[in-house]
């Protein structure tokens, strides 16, 4: 993929030993690499593999829910599928995809030669396949894999969990270590390796959102490690953190989990905010509206994300004062989120718009993420949440923020930067087909879930009452369509790597940023000499 020996002025300098700088050959190139581009590529490939694995589990779920009655799987296995689907998509697909984008793009965007801590970078990646090997292997253990939902509420996951739970805990610990090291690397890179002249308020938004995301990761991944460690103690060492008969409290689990879990949902969306803030101006041929307010809004969202966790727990019986606090704080998040949406729309307003695949995904991102935001606002109204809570309305809500939010953000980024990565333009017709099939499939799959939830269908059930049958069938058809479409993405990317129209250094006429000053494909080493930012 990377072509050696092609250096443009920004990177050429006088390198007598240029030939030492090319990638090694064979498997050891990937195993031992400390190159941010190689590691970024591995993260992206890994996350796409996980996306397909987690997606095929979703297909099992939707196939079982195609009709009422138990047809394909039994409830025990169904619960393992919902649990593993959630865990794999969150920790295996979305988060590593953003780390992959960060690896590729942060050094290119800030004019750095590589990540600040390249060896640690290698280790953070290679921990991930190990963690997921352990996690997925639990499916083949006696008693099956995790079956308690991706939120693994105690005591269902402790006293009543399958024997493989300890392996699950170990896998979560390893993922956590990987994420924390990745976050440290991002912070060290951004704070230390920016090109001269690039002040904080001149940083590209993707850099800003990743910086804030990295701080969120460092703040909450240890909390996740703490809660799974408490589980480990309860299961294997006779403690009673979450067992009332030993003086513990099952609700404590939920408080600790969601103290991690709520910032976690912003970890999965903030980098997408950043990427979209590059793509929309590029295809509107107009600067981003309200750069400073975008930065402050992301900061505000990140801070607020620490004080809203109990809105996931409105029905557990917290006192009314707590209930009110978490309701108000949650509603407040709508303000900075609204600012971001208004800014994107204002950026498009009076631009000169074209709709290549990155822009299509970005515009769909803004519309559909906003719909997910609306249902989020509805869920924030605590009294109404008593009706919405743990129904398909919630499933619809978080799939609207995660699929057209995080995942469309990733697709938009991939198409936007593929020419930079591969040196070739992707097939625009196929990419647009990918977009429209994904768009229709995704809405068909998830929009009816709002209706199902409002009609009273609880989430995480393998079988349902007859009045839910019609919309479930529609939803399953949409899900199959969305799932199958993703194979097309694989085809498009492979095709783009293997050939296609040569990409210019700056293939999008409205694009801004240092990454477009290096040739396409980006040479194996870039910015050995830092560029000057004015």
């Amino acid at each position, binding site marked *: 993929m990377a072509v050696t020996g092609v250096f443009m002025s920004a990177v050429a300098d006088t390198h007598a030993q240029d030939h030492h700088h090319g990638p090694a050959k064979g498997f050891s190139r990937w195993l031992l690499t400390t190159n941010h581009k190689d590691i970024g590529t591995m993260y992206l490939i890994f996350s796409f593999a996980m996306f397909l694995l987690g997606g095929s589990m979703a297909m099992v779920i939707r196939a079982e829910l195609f009709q009422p009655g138990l047809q394909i799987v039994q409830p025990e296995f169904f619960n393992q599928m919902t649990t593993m689907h959630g865990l794999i998509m969150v920790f295996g697909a979305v988060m590593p995809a953003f780390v992959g984008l960060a690896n590729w793009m942060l050094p290119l965007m800030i004019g750095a030669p590589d990540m600040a801590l390249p060896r640690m970078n290698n280790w953070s990646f290679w921990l991930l396949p190990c963690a997921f090997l352990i996690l997925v292997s639990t499916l083949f253990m006696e008693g099956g894999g995790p079956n308690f939902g991706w939120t693994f509420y105690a005591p269902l996951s402790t006293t009543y969990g399958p024997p493989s739970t300890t392996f699950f805990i170990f896998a979560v610990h390893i993922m956590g270590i990987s994420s924390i090291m990745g976050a440290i690397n991002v912070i060290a890179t951004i704070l230390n390796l920016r090109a001269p002249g690039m002040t904080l308020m001149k940083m590209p938004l993707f850099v800003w959102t990743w910086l804030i995301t990295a701080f969120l990761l460092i703040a909450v991944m240890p909390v996740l490690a703490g809660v799974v460690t408490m589980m480990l103690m309860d299961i294997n060492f006779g403690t009673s953190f979450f067992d009332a008969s030993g003086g513990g409290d099952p609700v404590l689990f939920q408080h600790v989990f969601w103290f991690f879990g709520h910032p976690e949902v912003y970890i999965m969306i903030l980098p997408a905010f950043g990427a979209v803030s590059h793509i929309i101006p590029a295809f509107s041929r107009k600067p981003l509206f309200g750069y400073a307010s975008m930065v402050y809004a992301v900061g505000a969202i990140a801070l607020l994300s620490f004080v809203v966790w109990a809105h996931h727990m409105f*029905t557990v019986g917290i006192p009314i004062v707590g209930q009110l606090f978490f309701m108000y704080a949650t509603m407040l998040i709508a303000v900075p989120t609204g600012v971001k949406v208004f800014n994107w729309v204002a950026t498009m307003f009076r631009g000169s718009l074209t709709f290549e695949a990155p822009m299509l995904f970005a515009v769909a991102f803004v519309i559909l993420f906003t719909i997910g935001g609306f249902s989020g606002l509805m869920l924030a109204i605590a009294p109404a949440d008593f009706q919405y809570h743990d129904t398909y309305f919630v499933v619809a809500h978080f799939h609207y923020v995660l699929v057209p939010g995080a995942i469309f953000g990733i697709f938009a980024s991939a198409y936007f930067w593929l020419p930079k990565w591969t040196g070739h333009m992707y097939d625009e017709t196929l990419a647009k087909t990918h977009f429209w099939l994904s768009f229709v499939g995704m809405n068909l799959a998830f929009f009816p879930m709002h209706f199902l939830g409002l009609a009273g269908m*609880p989430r995480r059930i393998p079988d349902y009452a007859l*009045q839910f049958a019609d919309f479930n069938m529609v939803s399953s058809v949409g899900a199959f369509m969305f799932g199958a479409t993703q194979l097309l993405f694989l085809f498009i990317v492979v095709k783009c790597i293997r050939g296609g129209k040569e990409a210019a250094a700056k293939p999008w006429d409205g694009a801004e940023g240092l990454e477009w000053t290096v040739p396409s494909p980006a040479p194996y080493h870039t910015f050995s000499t830092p560029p000057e930012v004015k």
Partner: protein
Amino acid sequence: MRVHAQRAGALLGGLMFPAWSMADWTLNMTPGVTGTSNEIFSLHMTILWICVVIGVVVFGVMFWSIFAHRKSQGAKPANFHENTLVEILWTIIPFVILVVMAIPATATLVDMYDTTESEVDIKITGYQWKWQYEYINEDFGYFSNLATPRDQIDNRQAKGENYLLEVDNHLVIPVGKKIRFLVTANDVIHSWWVPDFGVKKDAIPGFINETWTRVDKPGIYRGQCTELCGKDHGFMPVVVEAVPEEEYNTWVAEKKEAAERERQLTQKDWTMAELMERGEKAYQTACAACHQADGSGAPPAFPALKGSPIATQDMAAHIDIVVNGKSGTAMQAFGNQLSEVDLAAVITYERNAWGNNTGEMVTPKEIFDYKNQQ
């Protein structure tokens, strides 16, 4: 007002889109039958319309840009990238809308939390996978199990009208009275939900949550467990029957009498055949969900009983595990869940069914004595 406007809208929609007015294509939350559920419905509609209006404005501007400001239409890009006034406005206006929204939400929440001055108190306990209802002022209680036959779930039989939403024993409440529910659980967390009441509360082992309702319209109301609680989470419905007060009082009297009769059954002399017959029934409701109807279990979480040492060897150990459960596992203590008669019947059944032909039986009296010795 708003509720009426919505109903009118729904009617109009129903006339315009006949297929969509069928029950199976329900699009929206229903107002329910209690004050709480109506208030929630009204909040839901208010916030929904606020979102719709904001959506129309924001997406309107966006779509207008998409159509009017395309490069292919010859649009030349402007170069503005900030406007302090606009940015302040679109920060403050949403904030004001939120404050306006928070006021009625707060009022409803305060009302929902007011569990004082109840007239009937019912303790609800979640079990894997059934509900127990105890009328704590009347000194009786019972379990409520899924009544949908297994054959319907496995598609060997046509599904009934209330598929998965039907139980053997309804929770019966009087209309027009404030009912307080004390919600807890025996094993894992469950959540008790009746959409028509606007009541949902988590049932947490070791803690008691309070909630309340007042139903004015007699009828049967159906809901489900809404917190993932293990393999049969989808199979533990809630069915509440609201009846006029007189009917309720008669029902309570009957229930108390039946409870008394049940207690007397302990003293009766039971034969093996009687115990086996009763044991099979009790086994199906209390044990079969985990240990399976044929005693084969689902190892390792739920061991087989067929040919197991517990069910074929030492009787005392068998009684102990059924009455007291086994800590650290999914095996519950059935001592307080089942009557002495049912305990004796189940144990006898397990020791003699599926080829466990021990020929041994235990009588309700023996169980009674065993429990008293503890």
